[in-house]
């Protein structure tokens, strides 16, 4: 059978798992009117970014699946929303008493940095999220930002104290 060449390092199942995982890490929140990371626009950004870090992301997804199978007998993507949430939130307070699961938790946490970095990068540049933080959805340049000058009279006690450096012989 002929195959179609692709530069996508992820399988369809891995893509679904990545989005499910991201959505559990930063869920939507109605109080702040922000989407979750499984929002289609943000998810597309995450998938595009994750391709540049495919090895680290694949390894992280694999660890999530192993943990999900150990606990629930199913891969992460096949868990219901409550089970996904429960598994993600375990990382906030690791230590179930089961040595094998705890070791997997620890390994998962160590391996998560690349994944978390991708998720945070993509989430916190979304227009809706930036607006919810009272940020203008734009690049810093060329407009820049205003920073208040501040109160320079705060220096008076430092001036009054005088010299604090040592003289040195030539």
């Amino acid at each position: 059978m002929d195959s179609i060449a692709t530069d996508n390092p992820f399988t369809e199942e891995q893509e679904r798992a990545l989005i499910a995982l991201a959505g559990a890490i930063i869920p939507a929140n109605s109080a702040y009117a922000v989407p979750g990371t499984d929002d289609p626009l943000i998810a597309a950004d995450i998938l595009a970014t994750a391709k540049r870090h495919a090895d680290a992301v694949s390894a992280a997804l694999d660890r999530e699946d192993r943990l999900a199978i150990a606990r629930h007998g199913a891969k992460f993507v096949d868990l219901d929303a409550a089970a996904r949430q429960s598994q993600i939130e375990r990382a906030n307070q690791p230590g179930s008493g089961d040595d094998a699961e705890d070791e997997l938790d620890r390994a998962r946490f160590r391996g998560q940095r690349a994944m978390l970095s991708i998720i945070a990068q993509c989430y916190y540049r979304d227009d809706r999220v930036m607006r919810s933080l009272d940020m203008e959805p734009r690049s810093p340049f060329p407009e820049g930002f205003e920073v208040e000058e501040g109160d320079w009279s705060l220096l008076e006690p430092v001036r009054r104290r005088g010299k604090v450096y040592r003289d040195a012989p030539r």
Partner: protein
Amino acid sequence: MADAVDVLIVGAGASGAAVAWSLAETRMRIVCLEQGDWMNPLRYPSTGRDWEARAFGDMSISPNRRRRDTDYPVNDANSPIAVANFNAVGGSTILYAGHFPRFHPSDFRVKTLDGVADDWPIDYDTLEPFYAENDRMMGTSGLDGDPAYPPKHAPMPPVPLGKSGQTLAKGFNQLGWHWWPSDTAIATQPYDGRDRCINLGACGSGCAQGAKASTDITYWPHAVRAGVEVRTRCRVREITVNDEGMASGVTYYDEEGVEHFQAAQVVIVACNGVGTPRLLLNSTSGKFPNGLANSSGLVGKNLMFHPYASIQGVFEEPMDGYKGPGVCIWSQEFYETDAERGFVRGYTYEIHRGRGPVATALTGLHSGRIPLGEGHHEAYRRMFNRVTGMVGICEDLPEEHNTVTLDPELEDAHGIPAPKIDYTLSENSRRMLDHAVARGTEVLRAAGAVDIITEAPIAAGGWHLMGTARMGTDPQRSVVNEWGRAHDVRNLFIVDGSIFVTSAGVNPTRTIQALALYVADSMKKRLANLFD
């Protein structure tokens, strides 16, 4: 073979630019070989929405993460601190924060004053006119009258205090500790063709505004107009020598990987504390089997980093966050030696305003302050725009077992051995880091912080690379003499951070450049008998 040039400079960064500009007035034929490119500020991260992401990617401070064509790998697996640098015209000034302190008089006399390491063969007064000249060329901003320094003058007023600076200034005042607006290499007014800072907040990944003084927009335009030639994408493999033991030129690879030889009357190395020993150690010959200028055996030894402590506070009131130049004020309350502290020498606090939305998230997620899942948003909002703090820049004393050598396996794209770093944090540095964390916590609490986040040493923070080709008057205890000429090779000069005898407790770029101008001046005064 290309015609011989009068002066060949290797490296177009902080020091290469300064020495090139200074020597240009001699009308000698000067060529600078740089492995990186001219940077295009319109492509710096702050011009895009992904500005924070790119600081973790193609504009990362780590060459091993960045992996640009113009980078070389560094094996720093055997070091608790990883090397940070950038390879381009402008070198690491492209990415530096622009925090721009001078050394102090005591920094040149550590043996005499504190009984450790060695005194420099020059003193503060020797460098002072070159500091001033460099301040004019780079365009520094600051406030005259800092009681932590002898009198000095900055051409422009300081960067704003902002909410963050004001908050921490009140904390320092409450404790009666020194603070002062930082000297910065950031234009606060239009200066020498550059526009003023507009508070982009992304100094650490290149200044699209051109307000930050990277040498591609300060020294180099002047040097090029004066006739200096810069050849980019040229990676030097070795410095060659003739039968008399004098440097005869360099062998380098161009962008296509084609090998060239460039003959020169004088060779100046400006590759800083890792690149310079790498090049010298790779320049072996019958006369110099252990590397060029290495009869002392000290090339690559005494590597100093500046261990950094990060102490950040979470406040209930908004700070400057992602806005403004990252730097604002400094404190040198604990700069000079006090034996009661349990360590010798001292450190500077460099106060940072805050961080962007992505960095805030990662700080919170990695430190466990922002949870995964439910609760993320509430916790995030308690930190966003509410984190400010400082880094403690600790003086690192020279120790011969901290080294740069040639890696036996790892190579760059041209097959040149990569540098290998072997570095151990000293007990003195550990105590100093602990002190910096404890006192930094104290001042943040005094300023009103409700939570403190610390890291010491900062694992990724090997920004300052010094000491690996030290200067001195004794050829058995130093690599270059008191005006930068190699003891072993009379037409070979070194002008970068590798010639530092000690590291002081401040960012080194201003001193690196003052030294480069001083060496250039010494050469100009001796042109008639430079090789005697």
